[in-house]
C-alpha cells in the first residue's frame, strides 16, 4: 500500500501527453456523423444542399458496408447505421468526411431528411410502465420459501425511479482510422475501454474488404466511466468505412452536444418493491422486486446490466423469502449502456430508500433497522451464494461511529424544531461483485504477455486501458512490488491489438482485481521458479536467456460455479463492501439540498496505491452526488441537450467534505474498487433529506423543482 506517483501526471499537466484530438496524420481529413432527429420513422428522402461540390465529400451509408451492418458485441442486435428505418433519436444515417472541418459542418447542417414518422416511446414513464415494451430475456431469481404471511406483518410498497445519467467524461468520443491497401490492414487509433471490442466491430463492418483491424489507444483517454465501452465500436466502424472509401486517414471527434445526444447513458429504472416486515422482530420476512430498465432502442449490453442489477437488488439484508424479476424495456431513445455501477446504483436507489421507509413505519432508527436485518456469515444471497464474511456490518458500524451519527441525529432533531431550514443525516450500505458476473471471467479467459529485456526491463502487455483511473501505474506497481523490482524497470505498454493479447475489456471493476492479481501471481511464480531474490542480478548473470517472452492465462477458480439459466450459485467470487453516512443542509426557502459531508468506509481488500484508491472513491462519490441532486436529461426531447449548460454536473463550489477509510487492508486480495463508490452515496443523500425534512421522494435527482412539487402535491411523485 505505497503511494507510487502516477507516471503520466506531469506530461498531462504541461499538455505534452497526447489525447486523440491532439493527433494528426498526414493527409488526414475530418469526419462527422449525420444522425436521426426523428425518434422512430421511415427515411423518405435525403436532400443535400446545392451550393457544395458533392464530389469533395466522402459519404458512407449502410449501403457502403462491405461486411455486416450489425455491431457484433456485446449483444448483436444494433446496426452500425440505419437502413430505411430509424429506431431512435441519434441513430446514425450517414458518415461524411471532408478536408475542411468548417465546410463539413456547414454542409451537414444544411442536409435535409424527410421522415414518415411512426409512433415512438420517448418518455421513461411511458417506456417502463407499459409491459408491452418488454424485450430480451427476462431474469428471475427465485428464493421463495413457504412462509405464510401473518396478518400483522407490515406491508411496504413503493415504486422507485432513476433517470438517465450522462457520463460527461471531459474528452468527447473520437476515432482516427487509417486504411493501408498494401497490407489490407485498417489501423484505428481510439479513445476506448475495450480495444478488442473495437477490433471485432471494425472487422465486422469491413468484412472481406480488409485482412485485419489493428486497434491502438491514444496515450491519454480522457475519462470513460463505461461510456467508452460500447459506443466506440459503432464510431470506429463508420470512421473506418470512411477511411476505406476516401483512401485517407479520417478523424471523427464528436462535439459535446452530439456526444450528449447520441452516445449511451445510464439506464433509467423503475423498481417496484413489496416487503413484509414482522413488527415483533423488526425483520423483513419477504421481499418482492420488479426491476425494470429502459434499454433504449437496442439491447447491446443491457442484458448484463440487468443481470448485475438483479443480483444486487436485495441489498445487504437477510430476507428469508425473496423473489426478483428483472426485465428490459424498449424505447426510441439511444441505447443505454455501461456506466460505473452497472445496474447497482439503480438497485440501491430502491432497496436503500426502502429500508428507511420501513424503518420509519416501524418508528425505528435507520441504523438500528439495518443492524437488525443485515446479513451475517452463513446467510445467503437470493442466488443461494453463501455469505462468508461480515465485513459489510463492520463497514456500517465503523461509518456510524466515525460520523458521530447518533449524536448528530439528536442534535439535528433539536435544531430542526427551532429552524425553518433543516439539517439531516442519512445512511446507506451496499456491495459490488468484482469482475464479470457468473461464468463471465471463465469465458473471457484473459491473457497477458510479458517481455523481460536484457537490461531487466519488464514490459507488460495488456488490453486494459488507462482512462484516468491509474490502471497502468497500479498494474505495474503490483508486479514490481511483488518481487521488489525497481519501478523504472517495469512498464505497461500502450494497448495495441497487434502486440497486446486480449486481457478482456476494461470494465466491471476487474482490472486490478483480475489482471493485477494475475500479474502479481506471475511475478511471484517466476521468482520461485527461477529462484532469484533480485531479478536484475538474475538477468545480468543469465544474459543468454533474455529477452524472454511469457504468456499468462487466467486460471478460473474450480470452486466457483454459476447457473446462468436459473441464476443460482456463486455470482461473484469476491465482493467489495461499503457503508456511507451523508450530512445535508436543506435550504427551505429555495428548496435546495446542500451536501455538507460524506463519510465512506469500504472493504476493497488491499488498496494497492492508497491515493489512487482514494481518488476513485472521491470521484465516484461526486458522480453519485450529481446523480442524486442535479443531473437530469430531458425525457422527451434529446435534441435539446447541448452540453454543460443544460446538464449540471457538480462543480468545485458544490463539493462537500469527503472522509474515506478502508478496512481489512491487510487482505491478500485487491478487490474491485472502480464502481462501488458510485453505487451507494446517492441513497444516503436521499435518506438524509428524508431525515431532515420528513419528505419521502422516490425519484432522483432531488432538484428544487421536484422537492417543491412534492411539497405542493404530496401524492404526485413524478415530474
Amino acid at each position, binding site marked *: 500500500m505505497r503511494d507510487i506517483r502516477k507516471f503520466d501526471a506531469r506530461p498531462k499537466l504541461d*499538455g505534452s501527453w497526447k489525447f486523440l484530438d491532439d493527433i494528426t496524420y498526414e493527409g488526414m481529413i475530418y469526419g462527422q456523423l449525420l444522425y436521426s432527429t426523428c425518434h422512430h420513422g421511415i427515411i423518405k428522402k435525403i436532400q443535400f444542399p446545392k451550393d457544395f461540390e458533392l464530389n469533395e465529400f466522402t459519404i458512407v451509408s449502410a449501403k457502403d458496408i462491405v461486411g455486416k451492418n450489425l455491431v457484433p458485441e456485446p449483444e448483436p442486435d444494433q446496426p452500425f447505421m440505419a437502413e430505411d428505418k430509424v429506431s431512435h433519436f441519434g441513430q446514425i444515417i450517414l458518415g461524411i468526411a471532408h478536408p475542411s472541418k468548417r465546410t463539413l459542418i456547414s454542409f451537414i447542417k444544411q442536409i435535409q431528411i424527410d421522415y414518415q414518422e411512426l409512433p415512438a416511446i420517448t418518455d421513461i414513464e411511458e417506456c417502463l410502465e407499459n409491459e408491452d415494451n418488454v424485450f430480451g430475456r427476462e431474469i428471475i431469481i427465485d428464493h421463495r420459501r413457504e412462509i405464510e404471511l401473518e396478518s400483522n406483518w407490515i406491508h411496504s410498497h413503493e415504486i422507485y425511479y432513476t433517470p438517465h445519467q450522462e457520463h460527461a467524461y471531459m474528452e468527447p468520443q473520437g476515432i482516427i482510422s487509417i486504411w493501408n491497401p498494401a497490407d489490407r490492414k485498417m489501423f484505428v487509433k481510439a479513445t476506448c475501454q475495450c480495444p478488442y471490442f473495437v477490433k471485432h466491430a471494425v472487422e465486422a463492418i469491413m468484412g472481406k474488404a480488409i485482412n485485419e483491424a489493428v486497434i491502438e489507444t491514444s496515450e491519454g483517454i*480522457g475519462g470513460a466511466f463505461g461510456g467508452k465501452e460500447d459506443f466506440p465500436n459503432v464510431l470506429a466502424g463508420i470512421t473506418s468505412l470512411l477511411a476505406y472509401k476516401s483512401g485517407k486517414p479520417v478523424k471523427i471527434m464528436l462535439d459535446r452536444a452530439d456526444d450528449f445526444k447520441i452516445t449511451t447513458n445510464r439506464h433509467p429504472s423503475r423498481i417496484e418493491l413489496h416487503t413484509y416486515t414482522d413488527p415483533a422482530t423488526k425483520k423483513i420476512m419477504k421481499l418482492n422486486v420488479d426491476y425494470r430498465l429502459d434499454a433504449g432502442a437496442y439491447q447491446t449490453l443491457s442484458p448484463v446490466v440487468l443481470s448485475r442489477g438483479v443480483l444486487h437488488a436485495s441489498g445487504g439484508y437477510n430476507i428469508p423469502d425473496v423473489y426478483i424479476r428483472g426485465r428490459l424495456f424498449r424505447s426510441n431513445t439511444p441505447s443505454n449502456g455501461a456506466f460505473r455501477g452497472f445496474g447497482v446504483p439503480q438497485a440501491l436507489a430502491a432497496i436503500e430508500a426502502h429500508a428507511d421507509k420501513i424503518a420509519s413505519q416501524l418508528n425505528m432508527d435507520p441504523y438500528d433497522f439495518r443492524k437488525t436485518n443485515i446479513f451475517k456469515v452463513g446467510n445467503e444471497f437470493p442466488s443461494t451464494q453463501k455469505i462468508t464474511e461480515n465485513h459489510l456490518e463492520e463497514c456500517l458500524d465503523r461509518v456510524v461511529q466515525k460520523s458521530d451519527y447518533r449524536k448528530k441525529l439528536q442534535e439535528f432533531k433539536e435544531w430542526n424544531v427551532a429552524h425553518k431550514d433543516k439539517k439531516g443525516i442519512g445512511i446507506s450500505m451496499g456491495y459490488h461483485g468484482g469482475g464479470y458476473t457468473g461464468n463471465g471471467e471463465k469465458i473471457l479467459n484473459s491473457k497477458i504477455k510479458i517481455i523481460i529485456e536484457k537490461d531487466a526491463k519488464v514490459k507488460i502487455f495488456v488490453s486494459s486501458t488507462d482512462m484516468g483511473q491509474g490502471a497502468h501505474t497500479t498494474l505495474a506497481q503490483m508486479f514490481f512490488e511483488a518481487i521488489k523490482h525497481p519501478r523504472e524497470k517495469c512498464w505497461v505498454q500502450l494497448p495495441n491489438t497487434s502486440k497486446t493479447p486480449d486481457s478482456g475489456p476494461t470494465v466491471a471493476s476487474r482490472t486490478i482485481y483480475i489482471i493485477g492479481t494475475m500479474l502479481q501471481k506471475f511475478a511471484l511464480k517466476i521468482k520461485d521458479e527461477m529462484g532469484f531474490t533480485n531479478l536484475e542480478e538474475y538477468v545480468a548473470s543469465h544474459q543468454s536467456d533474455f529477452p524472454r517472452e511469457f504468456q499468462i492465462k487466467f486460471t478460473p477458480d474450480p470452486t466457483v460455479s454459476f447457473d446462468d439459466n436459473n441464476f443460482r450459485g456463486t455470482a461473484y467470487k469476491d465482493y467489495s463492501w461499503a457503508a456511507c453516512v451523508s450530512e445535508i443542509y436543506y435550504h427551505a426557502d429555495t428548496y435546495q439540498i446542500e451536501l455538507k459531508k460524506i463519510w465512506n468506509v469500504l472493504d476493497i481488500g488491499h488498496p494497492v496505491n492508497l491515493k489512487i484508491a482514494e*481518488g476513485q472513491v472521491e470521484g465516484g462519490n461526486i458522480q453519485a452526488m450529481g446523480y442524486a441532486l442535479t443531473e437530469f436529461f430531458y425525457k422527451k426531447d434529446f435534441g435539446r441537450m447541448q452540453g454543460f449548460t443544460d446538464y449540471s454536473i457538480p462543480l468545485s463550489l458544490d463539493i462537500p467534505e469527503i472522509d474515506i477509510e478502508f478496512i481489512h487492508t491487510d487482505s491478500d486480495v485487491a478487490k474491485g474498487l472502480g464502481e462501488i463508490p458510485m453505487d451507494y452515496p446517492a441513497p444516503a443523500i436521499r435518506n438524509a433529506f428524508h431525515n431532515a425534512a420528513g419528505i419521502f421522494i422516490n425519484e432522483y435527482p432531488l432538484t428544487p423543482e421536484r422537492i417543491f412539487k412534492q411539497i405542493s402535491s404530496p401524492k404526485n411523485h413524478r415530474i
Partner: protein
Amino acid sequence: MKINFILNKEAVSIDVDPMKRLLDVLREDFGLMGSKEGCGEGECGLCTVIYDNKPVTSCILNAIHADNKEILTAEGVAEEPLGKLLIECFDETNAVQCGICFPGFLVSSYHYLLTDGEPVLEKIKTALSGNICRCTGYKKIFESVLLACQRKKSGEA
C-alpha cells in the same frame, strides 16, 4: 488578417482568419495542444489560458481578440516557477486522473497563486469554479493547490 501578440512570453505574428477561434489558433497554428476542447461553449474550462492577466476560456475568443494582448497557455505556465511548484503538488498528491482537464486547472490555479495565493479552501474553490473535472471529485485538486499556496507562503518555493 495579421495579428500580433505575446504568446508564452514571446512576440508572435500570424496571418489568420480573424474569426477563427483562439483555441484553434493555439492548437492548429502554434501546435500548443495543452489547451483542449471539452465543450466549445466556455463552460468546462479545458481550454483556459491567461489572457490579459485573467483566466479565460479560449474557445469563446476569436483570433482577433488576441491582437496586441498577452497570452499564457498551460505550456507557458509549466515553465514558470509557480507553475512548476503547482505541477509538483498535483503530482505529489496523485491528483491527476484522466488529466484532460488539468492543463486548464493548472492555468486557473497559477492565476490564483499569482494574484492571491492565500491557502484558504473557500477561495481556492472559487478560483477553480470555471473548471470542470469529472474524474477526481475535485478533492485532491483542492489539496494540491492548498499545498502549493502553503509552500509559496512559507517560502519553500
